[in-house]
Protein backbone atom coordinates (compact mmCIF):
# COMPACT_ATOMS: atom_id res chain seq x y z
CA UNK A 1 0.00 0.00 0.00
CA UNK A 2 2.75 2.41 0.90
CA UNK A 3 4.42 1.84 -2.42
CA UNK A 4 1.27 3.03 -4.12
CA UNK A 5 2.33 6.51 -3.08
CA UNK A 6 4.77 6.53 -5.96
CA UNK A 7 2.01 6.23 -8.53
CA UNK A 8 0.03 8.94 -6.77
CA UNK A 9 3.07 11.18 -6.87
CA UNK A 10 3.45 10.55 -10.58
CA UNK A 11 -0.19 11.39 -11.23
CA UNK A 12 0.04 14.57 -9.18
CA UNK A 13 3.22 15.68 -10.93
CA UNK A 14 1.59 15.19 -14.31
CA UNK A 15 -1.54 16.94 -13.09
CA UNK A 16 0.33 19.98 -11.78
CA UNK A 17 2.33 20.17 -14.98
CA UNK A 18 -0.73 20.11 -17.23
CA UNK A 19 -2.68 22.51 -14.99
CA UNK A 20 0.14 25.04 -15.10
CA UNK A 21 0.46 24.65 -18.85
CA UNK A 22 -3.21 25.46 -19.18
CA UNK A 23 -3.60 28.32 -16.72
CA UNK A 24 -0.27 30.13 -16.37
CA UNK A 25 0.73 32.70 -18.92
CA UNK A 26 4.39 33.38 -18.31
CA UNK A 27 6.64 31.81 -20.93
CA UNK A 28 9.32 30.79 -18.41
CA UNK A 29 6.74 29.39 -15.99
CA UNK A 30 5.48 27.23 -18.83
CA UNK A 31 8.95 25.81 -19.32
CA UNK A 32 9.15 24.95 -15.62
CA UNK A 33 5.78 23.23 -15.93
CA UNK A 34 7.04 21.22 -18.89
CA UNK A 35 10.05 20.16 -16.85
CA UNK A 36 7.79 18.99 -14.06
CA UNK A 37 5.67 17.08 -16.58
CA UNK A 38 8.80 15.38 -17.85
CA UNK A 39 9.91 14.58 -14.30
CA UNK A 40 6.57 12.91 -13.79
CA UNK A 41 7.03 10.75 -16.87
CA UNK A 42 10.57 9.89 -15.80
CA UNK A 43 9.47 8.88 -12.31
CA UNK A 44 6.71 6.79 -13.87
CA UNK A 45 9.18 4.79 -15.94
CA UNK A 46 11.51 4.21 -13.00
CA UNK A 47 8.56 3.15 -10.86
CA UNK A 48 7.56 0.65 -13.50
CA UNK A 49 11.05 -0.79 -13.41
CA UNK A 50 11.17 -1.23 -9.66
CA UNK A 51 11.15 -4.71 -8.17
CA UNK A 52 10.89 -5.61 -4.51
CA UNK A 53 14.00 -7.07 -2.86
CA UNK A 54 16.06 -6.58 -5.97
CA UNK A 55 19.39 -4.96 -6.65
CA UNK A 56 20.46 -2.38 -9.15
CA UNK A 57 21.26 -3.91 -12.57
CA UNK A 58 25.00 -3.67 -12.07
CA UNK A 59 26.94 -6.84 -11.42
CA UNK A 60 29.90 -5.07 -9.88
CA UNK A 61 27.85 -4.03 -6.89
CA UNK A 62 25.47 -6.98 -6.69
CA UNK A 63 25.63 -9.29 -3.69
CA UNK A 64 26.23 -12.92 -4.47
CA UNK A 65 22.71 -14.28 -4.42
CA UNK A 66 21.50 -17.72 -5.31
CA UNK A 67 18.73 -16.28 -7.46
CA UNK A 68 19.56 -13.25 -9.55
CA UNK A 69 16.97 -10.57 -8.96
CA UNK A 70 17.50 -7.18 -10.50
CA UNK A 71 15.29 -4.24 -11.34
CA UNK A 72 14.48 -3.85 -15.02
CA UNK A 73 17.28 -2.11 -16.90
CA UNK A 74 15.42 -0.89 -20.01
CA UNK A 75 13.37 1.92 -18.43
CA UNK A 76 16.50 3.25 -16.78
CA UNK A 77 18.24 3.42 -20.14
CA UNK A 78 15.25 5.15 -21.69
CA UNK A 79 15.08 7.71 -18.90
CA UNK A 80 18.78 8.49 -19.21
CA UNK A 81 18.03 9.44 -22.80
CA UNK A 82 14.89 11.32 -21.88
CA UNK A 83 16.57 13.42 -19.19
CA UNK A 84 19.10 14.79 -21.67
CA UNK A 85 16.39 15.36 -24.27
CA UNK A 86 14.31 17.23 -21.70
CA UNK A 87 17.24 19.44 -20.78
CA UNK A 88 17.94 20.20 -24.43
CA UNK A 89 14.31 21.06 -25.14
CA UNK A 90 13.98 23.37 -22.18
CA UNK A 91 17.24 25.13 -23.11
CA UNK A 92 15.91 25.81 -26.59
CA UNK A 93 12.57 26.99 -25.26
CA UNK A 94 14.31 29.40 -22.91
CA UNK A 95 16.36 30.73 -25.81
CA UNK A 96 13.11 31.35 -27.67
CA UNK A 97 11.66 33.06 -24.60
CA UNK A 98 14.71 35.35 -24.39
CA UNK A 99 14.30 36.32 -28.03
CA UNK A 100 10.57 36.90 -27.59
CA UNK A 101 11.36 39.19 -24.70
CA UNK A 102 13.96 41.10 -26.69
CA UNK A 103 11.50 41.72 -29.50
CA UNK A 104 8.33 42.39 -27.56
CA UNK A 105 9.41 43.36 -24.06
CA UNK A 106 6.94 41.02 -22.48
CA UNK A 107 6.64 37.37 -21.51
CA UNK A 108 2.90 37.34 -21.06
CA UNK A 109 0.99 35.26 -23.57
CA UNK A 110 -2.04 37.56 -23.51
CA UNK A 111 0.03 40.62 -24.38
CA UNK A 112 1.86 38.69 -27.08
CA UNK A 113 -1.48 37.87 -28.67
CA UNK A 114 -2.32 41.59 -28.81
CA UNK A 115 0.98 42.30 -30.56
CA UNK A 116 0.23 39.67 -33.16
CA UNK A 117 -3.03 41.26 -34.17
CA UNK A 118 -1.69 44.80 -34.46
CA UNK A 119 1.35 44.04 -36.53
Amino acid at each position, binding site marked *: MTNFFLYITVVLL*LFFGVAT*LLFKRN*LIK*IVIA*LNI*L*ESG*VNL*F*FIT*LAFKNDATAPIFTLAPDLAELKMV*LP*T*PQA*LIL*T*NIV*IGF*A*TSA*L*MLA*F*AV*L*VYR*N*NKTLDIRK*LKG*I*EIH*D
Partner: protein
Amino acid sequence: MTDNFPVLIIALPLLVAFILPIVSRAGVKPRNILVFLVILAVNIMLLSLVPEVMIRGKILYSVIGSADPARVVPEGLTFPVRIVLRVDGFSLFMALLSGFFSLVCFIFSLRFIPEHGRKNYYVLLFLLMMTGMLGLEFTNDLFNFFVFLEILSISGAALVSYRTDRSHPPYAGYKYLLVSTIATSFFLLGVALCYAQYGSLNMEYIHRFMNHTLLDRMALVFMLAALAMKAGAAPMHMWVPDTYSEAPAPVTAMLVISSQASLYGLFRICFTLFGNPISRDTINYHTLGWIIIIMGVLSMFVGVTMALVQHDVKRLMAFHSVSQTGYLLMGIGVGVAVYTLNDGGAAYNSYGRVAMAGGIFHIMNYSISKGLLFLTAGVMFRRFGTCDLDRMTGMAHRDTVTTAVFIIGALAISGIPPFNAFSSKLLLYESVYRFSPVLSIIAMFVSVLTLASFTKVFYSAFLGPCRSDILVDEEPLPAGMIAGMTIMAAAIIVTGFLPSHTLNLLVDPAISGLVTIF
Protein backbone atom coordinates in the same frame (compact mmCIF):
# COMPACT_ATOMS: atom_id res chain seq x y z
CA MET B 1 23.82 -5.07 -51.33
CA THR B 2 20.65 -3.42 -50.16
CA ASP B 3 20.84 -4.99 -46.70
CA ASN B 4 22.35 -1.96 -45.06
CA PHE B 5 20.34 0.62 -46.96
CA PRO B 6 17.59 1.21 -44.37
CA VAL B 7 20.12 2.16 -41.73
CA LEU B 8 22.40 3.99 -44.15
CA ILE B 9 19.51 6.20 -45.23
CA ILE B 10 19.37 7.48 -41.66
CA ALA B 11 23.03 7.29 -40.68
CA LEU B 12 24.57 8.93 -43.74
CA PRO B 13 22.79 12.30 -43.37
CA LEU B 14 23.60 12.20 -39.66
CA LEU B 15 27.29 11.74 -40.40
CA VAL B 16 27.25 14.60 -42.88
CA ALA B 17 25.37 16.80 -40.44
CA PHE B 18 27.96 16.16 -37.74
CA ILE B 19 30.89 17.18 -39.93
CA LEU B 20 28.99 20.04 -41.56
CA PRO B 21 30.15 22.74 -39.10
CA ILE B 22 33.72 21.95 -40.13
CA VAL B 23 32.94 21.73 -43.84
CA SER B 24 31.07 25.04 -43.69
CA ARG B 25 34.30 26.81 -42.88
CA ALA B 26 35.69 25.77 -46.26
CA GLY B 27 33.08 27.88 -47.99
CA VAL B 28 29.57 27.97 -49.32
CA LYS B 29 30.08 25.85 -52.39
CA PRO B 30 31.58 22.73 -50.77
CA ARG B 31 28.84 22.85 -48.16
CA ASN B 32 26.05 23.08 -50.70
CA ILE B 33 27.53 20.38 -52.90
CA LEU B 34 28.02 18.01 -49.97
CA VAL B 35 24.49 18.44 -48.69
CA PHE B 36 22.99 18.18 -52.15
CA LEU B 37 24.95 14.99 -52.79
CA VAL B 38 23.84 13.39 -49.55
CA ILE B 39 20.18 14.21 -50.17
CA LEU B 40 20.56 12.83 -53.67
CA ALA B 41 22.23 9.69 -52.30
CA VAL B 42 19.36 9.19 -49.88
CA ASN B 43 16.89 9.51 -52.72
CA ILE B 44 18.81 7.03 -54.86
CA MET B 45 18.96 4.54 -52.00
CA LEU B 46 15.23 4.94 -51.43
CA LEU B 47 14.54 4.36 -55.11
CA SER B 48 16.74 1.29 -55.15
CA LEU B 49 14.54 -0.21 -52.43
CA VAL B 50 11.43 0.25 -54.58
CA PRO B 51 11.68 -2.95 -56.69
CA GLU B 52 12.11 -5.15 -53.67
CA VAL B 53 9.54 -3.56 -51.38
CA MET B 54 6.94 -2.09 -53.69
CA ILE B 55 6.89 -4.61 -56.51
CA ARG B 56 7.79 -7.83 -54.76
CA GLY B 57 6.02 -6.83 -51.56
CA LYS B 58 8.84 -7.82 -49.24
CA ILE B 59 9.26 -6.25 -45.81
CA LEU B 60 12.87 -5.39 -45.11
CA TYR B 61 14.20 -5.49 -41.58
CA SER B 62 17.40 -4.07 -40.29
CA VAL B 63 18.49 -5.01 -36.79
CA ILE B 64 20.88 -2.41 -35.49
CA GLY B 65 24.01 -3.68 -33.79
CA SER B 66 23.19 -7.35 -34.05
CA ALA B 67 25.87 -9.94 -34.69
CA ASP B 68 23.38 -11.85 -36.81
CA PRO B 69 21.47 -9.17 -38.71
CA ALA B 70 19.41 -11.65 -40.70
CA ARG B 71 17.38 -12.55 -37.63
CA VAL B 72 14.94 -10.04 -36.22
CA VAL B 73 14.28 -12.25 -33.24
CA PRO B 74 17.30 -14.00 -31.72
CA GLU B 75 17.34 -17.74 -31.79
CA GLY B 76 15.18 -19.38 -29.17
CA LEU B 77 13.41 -16.19 -28.16
CA THR B 78 10.03 -14.80 -29.07
CA PHE B 79 10.85 -11.13 -28.87
CA PRO B 80 13.43 -8.85 -30.51
CA VAL B 81 15.99 -7.42 -28.12
CA ARG B 82 17.43 -4.69 -30.31
CA ILE B 83 16.09 -1.73 -32.21
CA VAL B 84 14.60 -2.94 -35.47
CA LEU B 85 14.04 -0.84 -38.57
CA ARG B 86 11.22 -1.99 -40.76
CA VAL B 87 10.76 -0.94 -44.37
CA ASP B 88 7.41 -1.91 -45.78
CA GLY B 89 5.30 -0.39 -48.51
CA PHE B 90 3.78 2.38 -46.42
CA SER B 91 6.99 3.52 -44.79
CA LEU B 92 8.81 3.48 -48.12
CA PHE B 93 5.96 5.44 -49.69
CA MET B 94 6.23 8.13 -47.03
CA ALA B 95 10.03 8.07 -47.14
CA LEU B 96 10.04 8.56 -50.90
CA LEU B 97 7.77 11.53 -50.45
CA SER B 98 9.97 13.00 -47.71
CA GLY B 99 13.12 12.46 -49.76
CA PHE B 100 11.56 14.08 -52.82
CA PHE B 101 10.39 17.04 -50.75
CA SER B 102 13.78 17.50 -49.14
CA LEU B 103 15.47 17.54 -52.52
CA VAL B 104 13.07 20.06 -54.03
CA CYS B 105 12.99 22.32 -50.99
CA PHE B 106 16.76 22.26 -50.74
CA ILE B 107 17.11 23.32 -54.36
CA PHE B 108 14.53 26.01 -53.79
CA SER B 109 16.18 27.35 -50.66
CA LEU B 110 19.67 27.56 -52.18
CA ARG B 111 18.95 31.02 -53.47
CA PHE B 112 15.72 31.80 -51.64
CA ILE B 113 17.42 32.08 -48.27
CA PRO B 114 19.99 34.86 -48.63
CA GLU B 115 23.59 33.88 -47.96
CA HIS B 116 24.42 34.75 -44.38
CA GLY B 117 26.43 33.30 -41.53
CA ARG B 118 23.23 31.72 -40.26
CA LYS B 119 22.66 29.84 -43.48
CA ASN B 120 25.20 27.22 -42.34
CA TYR B 121 22.92 26.40 -39.46
CA TYR B 122 19.90 26.48 -41.75
CA VAL B 123 21.38 23.81 -44.00
CA LEU B 124 22.36 21.68 -41.01
CA LEU B 125 18.92 21.86 -39.44
CA PHE B 126 17.31 21.16 -42.80
CA LEU B 127 19.36 17.99 -43.17
CA LEU B 128 18.51 16.85 -39.66
CA MET B 129 14.83 17.53 -40.25
CA MET B 130 14.93 15.20 -43.22
CA THR B 131 16.73 12.59 -41.12
CA GLY B 132 14.13 12.90 -38.39
CA MET B 133 11.36 12.23 -40.86
CA LEU B 134 13.09 9.25 -42.43
CA GLY B 135 13.94 7.76 -39.06
CA LEU B 136 10.38 8.19 -37.88
CA GLU B 137 9.10 6.42 -40.95
CA PHE B 138 11.48 3.49 -40.79
CA THR B 139 11.62 2.64 -37.13
CA ASN B 140 9.67 -0.18 -35.61
CA ASP B 141 10.50 0.69 -32.04
CA LEU B 142 8.28 2.92 -29.93
CA PHE B 143 10.97 4.75 -28.03
CA ASN B 144 13.07 5.24 -31.12
CA PHE B 145 9.97 6.70 -32.73
CA PHE B 146 9.77 9.16 -29.85
CA VAL B 147 13.41 10.16 -30.28
CA PHE B 148 12.98 10.85 -33.97
CA LEU B 149 9.77 12.74 -33.28
CA GLU B 150 11.79 14.92 -30.94
CA ILE B 151 14.50 15.47 -33.57
CA LEU B 152 11.82 16.41 -36.09
CA SER B 153 10.09 18.89 -33.80
CA ILE B 154 13.25 20.58 -32.52
CA SER B 155 14.69 21.10 -35.99
CA GLY B 156 11.29 22.27 -37.19
CA ALA B 157 10.95 24.77 -34.35
CA ALA B 158 14.40 26.20 -34.94
CA LEU B 159 13.78 26.53 -38.67
CA VAL B 160 10.41 28.20 -38.11
CA SER B 161 12.14 31.00 -36.24
CA TYR B 162 14.88 31.37 -38.81
CA ARG B 163 14.03 35.02 -39.44
CA THR B 164 15.01 36.25 -35.99
CA ASP B 165 15.11 39.87 -37.12
CA ARG B 166 11.32 39.97 -37.28
CA SER B 167 9.34 39.99 -34.09
CA HIS B 168 7.00 37.01 -34.52
CA PRO B 169 9.13 34.04 -35.55
CA PRO B 170 10.66 33.32 -32.12
CA TYR B 171 7.19 33.21 -30.64
CA ALA B 172 5.99 30.93 -33.43
CA GLY B 173 8.97 28.68 -32.79
CA TYR B 174 8.22 28.69 -29.08
CA LYS B 175 4.64 27.70 -29.76
CA TYR B 176 5.59 24.90 -32.11
CA LEU B 177 8.13 23.53 -29.68
CA LEU B 178 5.68 23.79 -26.79
CA VAL B 179 3.01 21.86 -28.67
CA SER B 180 5.54 19.28 -29.81
CA THR B 181 6.97 18.78 -26.35
CA ILE B 182 3.54 18.31 -24.80
CA ALA B 183 2.69 15.87 -27.58
CA THR B 184 5.90 13.89 -27.18
CA SER B 185 5.52 13.78 -23.39
CA PHE B 186 2.09 12.26 -23.70
CA PHE B 187 3.31 9.92 -26.39
CA LEU B 188 5.97 8.76 -23.98
CA LEU B 189 3.31 8.20 -21.34
CA GLY B 190 1.50 5.95 -23.82
CA VAL B 191 4.74 4.11 -24.49
CA ALA B 192 5.15 3.61 -20.74
CA LEU B 193 1.70 2.08 -20.47
CA CYS B 194 2.48 -0.31 -23.33
CA TYR B 195 5.85 -1.21 -21.89
CA ALA B 196 4.37 -1.85 -18.46
CA GLN B 197 2.15 -4.57 -19.88
CA TYR B 198 4.17 -6.22 -22.59
CA GLY B 199 7.74 -5.65 -21.48
CA SER B 200 8.78 -4.74 -24.96
CA LEU B 201 8.97 -1.70 -27.17
CA ASN B 202 8.76 -3.41 -30.52
CA MET B 203 5.55 -2.58 -32.37
CA GLU B 204 5.14 -5.93 -34.08
CA TYR B 205 5.74 -7.83 -30.88
CA ILE B 206 3.20 -5.75 -28.97
CA HIS B 207 0.77 -6.19 -31.85
CA ARG B 208 1.08 -9.93 -31.58
CA PHE B 209 0.26 -10.01 -27.88
CA MET B 210 -2.20 -7.14 -27.85
CA ASN B 211 -4.91 -7.79 -25.27
CA HIS B 212 -6.85 -4.55 -25.71
CA THR B 213 -7.14 -4.03 -22.00
CA LEU B 214 -8.30 -0.73 -20.57
CA LEU B 215 -4.68 0.37 -20.21
CA ASP B 216 -4.06 -0.34 -23.87
CA ARG B 217 -6.96 1.83 -24.85
CA MET B 218 -5.62 4.59 -22.67
CA ALA B 219 -2.22 4.28 -24.29
CA LEU B 220 -4.01 4.44 -27.64
CA VAL B 221 -5.80 7.63 -26.61
CA PHE B 222 -2.60 9.27 -25.40
CA MET B 223 -0.67 8.37 -28.54
CA LEU B 224 -3.53 9.29 -30.85
CA ALA B 225 -4.04 12.67 -29.20
CA ALA B 226 -0.32 13.39 -29.26
CA LEU B 227 0.13 12.55 -32.93
CA ALA B 228 -3.07 14.29 -34.01
CA MET B 229 -1.82 17.36 -32.16
CA LYS B 230 1.47 17.15 -33.98
CA ALA B 231 -0.30 16.68 -37.32
CA GLY B 232 -2.55 19.69 -36.75
CA ALA B 233 -5.97 18.02 -36.73
CA ALA B 234 -8.98 20.06 -35.78
CA PRO B 235 -9.35 20.52 -32.05
CA MET B 236 -5.60 20.96 -31.67
CA HIS B 237 -4.90 23.01 -34.80
CA MET B 238 -4.30 26.40 -33.17
CA TRP B 239 -0.55 26.31 -33.67
CA VAL B 240 -0.73 25.60 -37.41
CA PRO B 241 -1.44 29.08 -38.85
CA ASP B 242 1.15 30.86 -36.70
CA THR B 243 3.87 28.36 -37.38
CA TYR B 244 3.24 27.94 -41.08
CA SER B 245 2.94 31.64 -41.77
CA GLU B 246 6.09 32.71 -39.92
CA ALA B 247 8.42 30.11 -41.39
CA PRO B 248 10.38 30.73 -44.60
CA ALA B 249 8.62 29.17 -47.61
CA PRO B 250 10.77 26.04 -48.10
CA VAL B 251 10.56 25.34 -44.38
CA THR B 252 6.78 25.60 -44.56
CA ALA B 253 6.79 23.04 -47.34
CA MET B 254 8.93 20.81 -45.13
CA LEU B 255 6.54 21.37 -42.24
CA VAL B 256 3.70 20.16 -44.44
CA ILE B 257 5.47 16.90 -45.08
CA SER B 258 6.54 16.58 -41.45
CA SER B 259 2.89 16.86 -40.43
CA GLN B 260 2.26 14.02 -42.84
CA ALA B 261 5.00 12.07 -41.07
CA SER B 262 3.10 12.55 -37.79
CA LEU B 263 -0.04 11.35 -39.52
CA TYR B 264 1.93 8.35 -40.71
CA GLY B 265 2.71 7.68 -37.07
CA LEU B 266 -0.98 7.93 -36.24
CA PHE B 267 -1.90 5.37 -38.88
CA ARG B 268 0.93 3.10 -37.76
CA ILE B 269 -0.31 3.26 -34.19
CA CYS B 270 -3.85 2.43 -35.30
CA PHE B 271 -2.91 -0.50 -37.48
CA THR B 272 0.50 -1.88 -36.62
CA LEU B 273 0.33 -1.39 -32.89
CA PHE B 274 -3.35 -1.84 -32.04
CA GLY B 275 -4.97 -3.40 -35.08
CA ASN B 276 -4.71 -7.02 -34.06
CA PRO B 277 -7.42 -8.79 -36.07
CA ILE B 278 -7.58 -11.68 -33.62
CA SER B 279 -9.21 -9.44 -31.08
CA ARG B 280 -11.91 -8.10 -33.33
CA ASP B 281 -14.55 -8.48 -30.66
CA THR B 282 -12.65 -7.10 -27.74
CA ILE B 283 -12.09 -3.57 -28.89
CA ASN B 284 -14.68 -1.50 -30.56
CA TYR B 285 -12.65 -0.51 -33.55
CA HIS B 286 -15.70 0.96 -35.17
CA THR B 287 -15.76 3.67 -32.49
CA LEU B 288 -12.11 4.45 -33.03
CA GLY B 289 -12.77 4.83 -36.74
CA TRP B 290 -15.64 7.20 -36.05
CA ILE B 291 -13.47 9.27 -33.70
CA ILE B 292 -10.92 9.68 -36.46
CA ILE B 293 -13.65 10.49 -38.98
CA ILE B 294 -15.19 13.13 -36.72
CA MET B 295 -11.75 14.64 -36.17
CA GLY B 296 -11.33 14.70 -39.93
CA VAL B 297 -14.69 16.30 -40.69
CA LEU B 298 -14.10 18.90 -38.00
CA SER B 299 -10.67 19.66 -39.46
CA MET B 300 -12.11 20.01 -42.94
CA PHE B 301 -14.82 22.35 -41.88
CA VAL B 302 -12.88 24.51 -39.41
CA GLY B 303 -9.93 24.79 -41.75
CA VAL B 304 -11.84 25.87 -44.80
CA THR B 305 -14.16 28.30 -43.04
CA MET B 306 -11.24 29.97 -41.30
CA ALA B 307 -9.33 30.09 -44.57
CA LEU B 308 -12.09 32.03 -46.32
CA VAL B 309 -11.72 35.06 -44.06
CA GLN B 310 -7.93 35.31 -44.07
CA HIS B 311 -6.04 38.16 -45.69
CA ASP B 312 -2.57 36.75 -45.17
CA VAL B 313 -1.79 34.36 -48.00
CA LYS B 314 0.31 32.01 -45.86
CA ARG B 315 -2.24 31.89 -43.06
CA LEU B 316 -4.87 31.10 -45.67
CA MET B 317 -2.83 28.23 -47.02
CA ALA B 318 -2.10 27.05 -43.47
CA PHE B 319 -5.80 26.80 -42.70
CA HIS B 320 -6.17 24.90 -45.93
CA SER B 321 -3.61 22.41 -44.72
CA VAL B 322 -5.81 21.81 -41.70
CA SER B 323 -8.79 21.18 -43.95
CA GLN B 324 -6.86 18.87 -46.25
CA THR B 325 -5.58 16.91 -43.25
CA GLY B 326 -9.24 16.25 -42.63
CA TYR B 327 -9.55 14.41 -45.93
CA LEU B 328 -6.70 12.08 -45.03
CA LEU B 329 -8.15 11.42 -41.60
CA MET B 330 -11.55 10.74 -43.11
CA GLY B 331 -10.23 8.24 -45.64
CA ILE B 332 -8.18 6.33 -43.11
CA GLY B 333 -10.95 6.63 -40.52
CA VAL B 334 -13.39 4.86 -42.83
CA GLY B 335 -10.74 2.21 -43.36
CA VAL B 336 -10.27 1.77 -39.61
CA ALA B 337 -14.01 1.69 -38.98
CA VAL B 338 -14.64 -1.16 -41.38
CA TYR B 339 -11.27 -2.91 -41.03
CA THR B 340 -12.30 -4.95 -38.04
CA LEU B 341 -16.03 -5.22 -38.71
CA ASN B 342 -17.28 -8.68 -38.02
CA ASP B 343 -18.58 -9.36 -41.53
CA GLY B 344 -15.71 -11.40 -42.85
CA GLY B 345 -14.08 -8.39 -44.37
CA ALA B 346 -16.86 -7.75 -46.89
CA ALA B 347 -17.20 -4.05 -46.17
CA TYR B 348 -13.45 -3.64 -46.01
CA ASN B 349 -12.92 -5.31 -49.34
CA SER B 350 -15.74 -3.53 -51.12
CA TYR B 351 -15.11 0.05 -50.07
CA GLY B 352 -12.88 0.28 -46.96
CA ARG B 353 -9.75 -0.44 -48.87
CA VAL B 354 -10.72 2.06 -51.56
CA ALA B 355 -11.25 4.72 -48.92
CA MET B 356 -7.82 4.02 -47.51
CA ALA B 357 -6.34 4.12 -50.98
CA GLY B 358 -7.98 7.52 -51.46
CA GLY B 359 -6.62 8.73 -48.14
CA ILE B 360 -3.08 7.54 -48.75
CA PHE B 361 -3.09 8.73 -52.35
CA HIS B 362 -4.31 12.07 -51.09
CA ILE B 363 -1.36 12.30 -48.68
CA MET B 364 0.89 12.38 -51.71
CA ASN B 365 -1.27 14.65 -53.85
CA TYR B 366 -2.06 17.06 -51.10
CA SER B 367 1.48 17.42 -49.85
CA ILE B 368 2.93 17.95 -53.31
CA SER B 369 0.37 20.54 -54.36
CA LYS B 370 0.36 22.28 -50.98
CA GLY B 371 4.15 22.32 -50.95
CA LEU B 372 4.09 23.90 -54.39
CA LEU B 373 1.59 26.53 -53.25
CA PHE B 374 3.73 27.40 -50.24
CA LEU B 375 6.74 27.79 -52.51
CA THR B 376 4.77 30.22 -54.70
CA ALA B 377 3.77 32.05 -51.53
CA GLY B 378 7.50 32.37 -50.89
CA VAL B 379 7.89 33.99 -54.31
CA MET B 380 5.07 36.40 -53.46
CA PHE B 381 6.79 37.27 -50.21
CA ARG B 382 10.04 37.84 -52.04
CA ARG B 383 8.35 40.16 -54.54
CA PHE B 384 6.19 42.23 -52.23
CA GLY B 385 7.94 41.89 -48.88
CA THR B 386 4.64 41.00 -47.25
CA CYS B 387 2.12 38.20 -47.14
CA ASP B 388 -0.88 40.53 -47.04
CA LEU B 389 -3.14 39.84 -50.00
CA ASP B 390 -4.45 43.41 -50.06
CA ARG B 391 -1.01 44.74 -50.84
CA MET B 392 -0.26 42.44 -53.75
CA THR B 393 -1.16 42.94 -57.35
CA GLY B 394 -0.23 42.01 -60.87
CA MET B 395 2.20 39.17 -60.43
CA ALA B 396 0.99 37.52 -63.62
CA HIS B 397 2.60 40.24 -65.71
CA ARG B 398 6.05 39.61 -64.37
CA ASP B 399 6.34 35.98 -63.21
CA THR B 400 4.76 33.76 -65.81
CA VAL B 401 6.27 30.55 -64.45
CA THR B 402 5.08 31.27 -60.93
CA THR B 403 1.62 32.06 -62.24
CA ALA B 404 1.47 28.85 -64.21
CA VAL B 405 2.57 26.66 -61.31
CA PHE B 406 0.24 28.47 -58.95
CA ILE B 407 -2.69 27.73 -61.25
CA ILE B 408 -1.63 24.09 -61.45
CA GLY B 409 -1.28 23.80 -57.69
CA ALA B 410 -4.54 25.59 -56.89
CA LEU B 411 -6.53 23.57 -59.41
CA ALA B 412 -4.91 20.37 -58.21
CA ILE B 413 -5.70 20.92 -54.57
CA SER B 414 -9.30 21.82 -55.37
CA GLY B 415 -9.72 18.51 -57.20
CA ILE B 416 -10.14 19.72 -60.77
CA PRO B 417 -9.93 16.84 -63.30
CA PRO B 418 -6.65 16.74 -65.15
CA PHE B 419 -4.56 17.07 -61.99
CA ASN B 420 -3.64 14.58 -59.35
CA ALA B 421 -5.88 15.37 -56.38
CA PHE B 422 -8.92 14.78 -58.56
CA SER B 423 -8.37 11.05 -58.66
CA SER B 424 -7.73 10.73 -54.93
CA LYS B 425 -10.72 12.90 -54.07
CA LEU B 426 -12.90 10.87 -56.44
CA LEU B 427 -11.83 7.67 -54.71
CA LEU B 428 -12.63 9.25 -51.37
CA TYR B 429 -16.05 10.54 -52.43
CA GLU B 430 -17.11 7.25 -53.94
CA SER B 431 -16.04 5.03 -51.11
CA VAL B 432 -17.08 7.35 -48.31
CA TYR B 433 -20.49 7.72 -49.95
CA ARG B 434 -21.06 4.04 -49.49
CA PHE B 435 -20.04 4.30 -45.86
CA SER B 436 -22.04 7.41 -45.04
CA PRO B 437 -23.42 9.79 -47.70
CA VAL B 438 -23.36 12.86 -45.45
CA LEU B 439 -19.59 12.72 -45.05
CA SER B 440 -19.12 12.57 -48.77
CA ILE B 441 -21.32 15.60 -49.33
CA ILE B 442 -19.43 17.59 -46.69
CA ALA B 443 -16.17 16.67 -48.39
CA MET B 444 -17.41 17.89 -51.77
CA PHE B 445 -18.71 21.10 -50.24
CA VAL B 446 -15.32 21.76 -48.61
CA SER B 447 -13.66 21.14 -51.94
CA VAL B 448 -15.77 23.83 -53.58
CA LEU B 449 -14.93 26.29 -50.81
CA THR B 450 -11.24 25.50 -51.32
CA LEU B 451 -11.49 26.49 -54.94
CA ALA B 452 -13.32 29.66 -53.95
CA SER B 453 -10.61 30.84 -51.58
CA PHE B 454 -7.84 30.09 -54.06
CA THR B 455 -9.73 32.08 -56.66
CA LYS B 456 -9.54 34.95 -54.21
CA VAL B 457 -5.77 34.58 -53.89
CA PHE B 458 -5.35 34.36 -57.63
CA TYR B 459 -7.52 37.41 -58.19
CA SER B 460 -5.76 39.66 -55.71
CA ALA B 461 -2.15 38.60 -56.13
CA PHE B 462 -1.80 37.70 -59.77
CA LEU B 463 -4.36 39.74 -61.64
CA GLY B 464 -4.66 43.49 -61.64
CA PRO B 465 -2.29 46.18 -62.79
CA CYS B 466 1.43 45.64 -62.47
CA ARG B 467 2.83 48.27 -60.12
CA SER B 468 6.56 48.39 -59.76
CA ASP B 469 6.42 50.90 -56.90
CA ILE B 470 5.25 48.31 -54.38
CA LEU B 471 7.76 45.67 -55.44
CA VAL B 472 10.59 44.99 -53.03
CA ASP B 473 12.58 42.82 -55.38
CA GLU B 474 12.36 43.26 -59.14
CA GLU B 475 15.05 40.86 -60.29
CA PRO B 476 14.09 37.74 -62.21
CA LEU B 477 13.81 34.62 -60.11
CA PRO B 478 16.98 32.54 -59.62
CA ALA B 479 17.13 29.28 -61.55
CA GLY B 480 17.06 27.18 -58.37
CA MET B 481 13.70 28.52 -57.29
CA ILE B 482 12.15 28.05 -60.71
CA ALA B 483 13.60 24.54 -60.90
CA GLY B 484 12.15 23.64 -57.52
CA MET B 485 8.68 24.82 -58.43
CA THR B 486 8.79 23.23 -61.86
CA ILE B 487 9.77 19.83 -60.47
CA MET B 488 6.81 19.95 -58.10
CA ALA B 489 4.44 20.99 -60.89
CA ALA B 490 5.79 18.25 -63.11
CA ALA B 491 5.16 15.73 -60.34
CA ILE B 492 1.57 16.94 -60.10
CA ILE B 493 1.03 16.61 -63.82
CA VAL B 494 2.67 13.19 -64.08
CA THR B 495 0.71 11.70 -61.21
CA GLY B 496 -2.39 13.47 -62.50
CA PHE B 497 -2.19 11.90 -65.93
CA LEU B 498 -1.13 8.45 -64.72
CA PRO B 499 -3.36 7.89 -61.70
CA SER B 500 -3.80 4.16 -62.18
CA HIS B 501 -0.06 3.60 -62.54
CA THR B 502 0.61 5.57 -59.39
CA LEU B 503 -2.10 3.65 -57.58
CA ASN B 504 -0.72 0.31 -58.64
CA LEU B 505 2.93 1.12 -58.13
CA LEU B 506 2.86 3.17 -54.95
CA VAL B 507 -0.47 3.26 -53.16
CA ASP B 508 -1.50 -0.39 -53.26
CA PRO B 509 1.80 -1.63 -51.79
CA ALA B 510 1.48 1.12 -49.20
CA ILE B 511 -1.90 -0.18 -48.03
CA SER B 512 -0.61 -3.74 -48.00
CA GLY B 513 2.36 -2.58 -45.95
CA LEU B 514 0.03 -0.87 -43.52
CA VAL B 515 -2.40 -3.72 -42.94
CA THR B 516 -0.12 -6.75 -43.18
CA ILE B 517 2.07 -7.02 -40.17
CA PHE B 518 4.35 -9.99 -40.72
